[in-house]
């Protein structure tokens, strides 16, 4: 297949472009893809500097470039089945298309997240009450157990008993949820 843009070199990169939900296939050679990519960034609004930084990361880091190259060559295999996002497309725009993208590109994501977030790749902040489900309850139990420990050390047994009951209630909830 020839590159759509120059009609000279063979098309090695295949993108799925989604504008307002309409999918279009684009087949480009590496040079033309590069040019298009740059153009894309030039057209973005000024508020998107963080994404330029993301793009910058991929270009600057030598090891990463290699991973990018490999990933790009396998990009046809890697496509989110919910929104159609491909990994190469993600590298160009710096944004995902849906929550499922995080699962689809799970293996590729860890090094990217580490570079963006100072070596971190795992969440350690707020857990939502409903969406977090059992995780939220487990964390609550952990906190209560710590409180219980301090209360016992301070010999405040009456309060400790209350906390213990609360822990039991949460543990029961957890069992019911898992059953």
């Amino acid at each position: 297949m020839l590159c759509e843009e120059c009609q000279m070199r063979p098309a090695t990169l295949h993108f799925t472009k989604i504008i307002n939900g309409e999918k279009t296939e684009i087949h480009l050679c590496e040079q033309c893809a590069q040019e298009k990519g740059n153009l894309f960034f030039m057209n973005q609004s000024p508020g998107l500097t963080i994404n330029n930084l993301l793009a910058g990361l991929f270009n600057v880091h030598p090891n990463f470039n290699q991973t990018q190259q490999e990933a790009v060559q396998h990009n046809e295999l890697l496509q989110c089945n919910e929104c159609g996002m491909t990994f190469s497309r993600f590298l160009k725009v710096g944004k995902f298309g849906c929550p499922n993208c995080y699962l689809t590109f799970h293996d590729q994501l860890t090094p990217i997240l580490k570079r963006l977030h100072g070596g971190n790749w795992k969440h350690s902040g707020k857990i939502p009450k409903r969406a977090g489900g059992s995780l939220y309850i487990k964390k609550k139990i952990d906190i209560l157990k710590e409180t219980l420990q301090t209360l016992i050390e301070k010999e405040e047994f009456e309060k400790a008993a209350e906390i213990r009951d609360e822990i039991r209630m949460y543990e029961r909830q957890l069992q019911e949820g898992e059953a």
Partner: protein
Amino acid sequence: MSIEKFLNQSLSNWMNGEGPHSDIVLTSRIRLARNLKDFLFPTVFSQEDSKRVLEYIEKIIPFLNEYPLKNIELLKMDQLQELQKQVLVEKHLISPNLAKESLNGACLLSENENISIMINEEDHIRIQVLLSGLQLERALEIANMVDDQIEKQVDYAYNEVYGYLTSCPTNVGTGLRASVMMHLPGLVMTQQMSQLIPSINQLGLVVRGIYGEGSEALGNIFQISNQITLGKSEQDVLFDLNGVVEQIISQERAARETIRKTSEVQLEDKVFRSLGVLTNCRIIESKEAAQCLSDVRMGIDMGYIKNISKTILNELMILTQPGFLQQYAGGPLRPFDRDVRRAKLIRERLFLERNK
């Protein structure tokens, strides 16, 4: 429109110049990015998807009725005039992106304008809380109350490993961007800012000017915010940011005292010249206005200028933006006419101070 009426309609609660360290910290802002589980992200969704998201949010609004969300108002972008949107952008209540490019973009606004919730921006939901002075913890507390109320009604896109899922991986995890707007004329005058910025960057924080383009920070106003959203709790992010901000505050105070000691006459001259310009100008560009406002504010904070309230910097930096000037004028203005209008607005505002 009279100046009193214009001010009444235009001022938001966070411009009141109160709160801890408000001589240097103008505002504290917390932003939480959230998405709905069963919808494509706004980065790729269709007009139809965006409509469904907005309808979904509209349905839950009646249930968002606990503190601090009583009496919130829904503003749909496609029902506002360009000028109204521009004014919301200039007040930092919505992003330029929401105003210009969103599909079915909307904003839920609290009565005192401390809380704004953007719908269909880069993420489905972006909760923003804006307070005056250094009050990051309080702002986070309010944002969390808003977040919890919304979460009772919708299914968030959340994952045990990655936390809150966002369309851009730079926000994934907590979805939290905490930022502080600081007035740093002393550090700029003593040329310490250029050394300070790289060292702040090394701590994983971002510094940028709020007004003006590129590296230039009009009015010596800088925004400092966290970059990392993954692997750090909300409290840790705030703790680190607060630490840096407090250090910058003491450096700014030290710089001001150095200037006072080494070149007090020059400082007084600069401050009072700027006050002279603002009280007498007939044409003024935004860049000059910003510099003079910064000088006058510093003069107030350092005790040279009395009887003028310190809120004028916070207020006038916002109210002399093109959108506001046109609203004040009651119609569109060419750039030259804006400069004339800007001068008039500043003179009238300062005149109000004198007759207080």
